[in-house]
């Protein structure tokens, strides 16, 4: 197994999970993940030096997800995105997960990215690098985002601790 395939099998699930939480659509998520790995493959072929493939993949996948979300909100498909949880893509997820998905969709693209990255346990520095939000305003945006998300979850009667 070559280096690329090794990275692919090791990181696929991780990257897929991040992207599918941001896009809320399993099909589009797998497309984005494929595109991300294609970009990595092409970089390897061009002999681009990548020291930390995992964070490189994270960065590319997050960027692609941001573009996807911006396109979605530009096309004014917010309603469509909100309804996506009822589509067959998500027939496997339970009610509680649907609520979380719905609450996440209520956030703006930037906030959504931040919330997902926060749940991945990233530091403020990493979040700033990946989301494009200023390092100094991460704390402020994050606290506001979490409050918004918490309100939505409460409204939908999500079972909190």
């Amino acid at each position, binding site marked *: 197994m070559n280096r690329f395939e090794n990275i*692919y099998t090791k990181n*696929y699930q991780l990257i897929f*999970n991040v992207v599918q939480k941001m896009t809320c659509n399993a099909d589009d998520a797998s497309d984005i993940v494929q595109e991300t790995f294609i970009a990595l493959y092409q970089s390897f072929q061009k002999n681009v030096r990548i020291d930390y493939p995992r964070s490189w993949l994270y960065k590319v996948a997050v960027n692609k997800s941001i573009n996807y979300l911006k396109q979605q909100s530009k096309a004014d498909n917010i309603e469509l995105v909100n309804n996506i949880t009822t589509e067959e893509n998500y027939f496997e997820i339970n009610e509680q997960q649907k609520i979380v998905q719905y609450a996440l969709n209520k956030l703006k693209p930037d906030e959504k990215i931040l919330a997902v990255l926060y749940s991945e346990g990233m530091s*403020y520095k990493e979040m700033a690098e990946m989301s494009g939000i200023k390092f100094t305003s991460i704390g402020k945006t994050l606290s506001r985002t979490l409050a918004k998300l918490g309100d939505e979850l409460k409204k939908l009667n999500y079972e909190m601790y």
Partner: protein
Amino acid sequence: MKCIDQQQLQQYIDGECTANKKAAIEKHLSECTRCYKKLYEMKALAVNAQHAIASLNRNNIEVPTFNYAKLKTKTKKIKYIIYSLSAACIIFFIFIFVDKKQEPCAEPVSIVQTLTWEADANQTFANQDFAIQITDCRGKSKVIYLE
């Protein structure tokens, strides 16, 4: 110290503030029950939000085999599109260029007679500068003096 704002509390919870700041916040928290309560709520919210989002993780995803063929066809497809587009452009420009030269006039040629001054019936045309202006449909015009 006045009460701590949300941003600072969030940084404190995530361990993202400097040692000095941390000490100042902890000192204030020991004195101010309102801020302590707020910290407790925000901590719970952070944990809940992280847990809620993490619940969307799927642990049993089947990793599809990486499709090298797709990679090739994709680049081939792009090449094909570029070639066909450029061919279409060339044909389009040739069509426009050739078309303009060979297209026969759809409108009749207009002839405008202009009299520079009143005609004198007793003199010949040549002596009186009679001119005929001919304009075709493309706006080209020619002035012919009668002799």
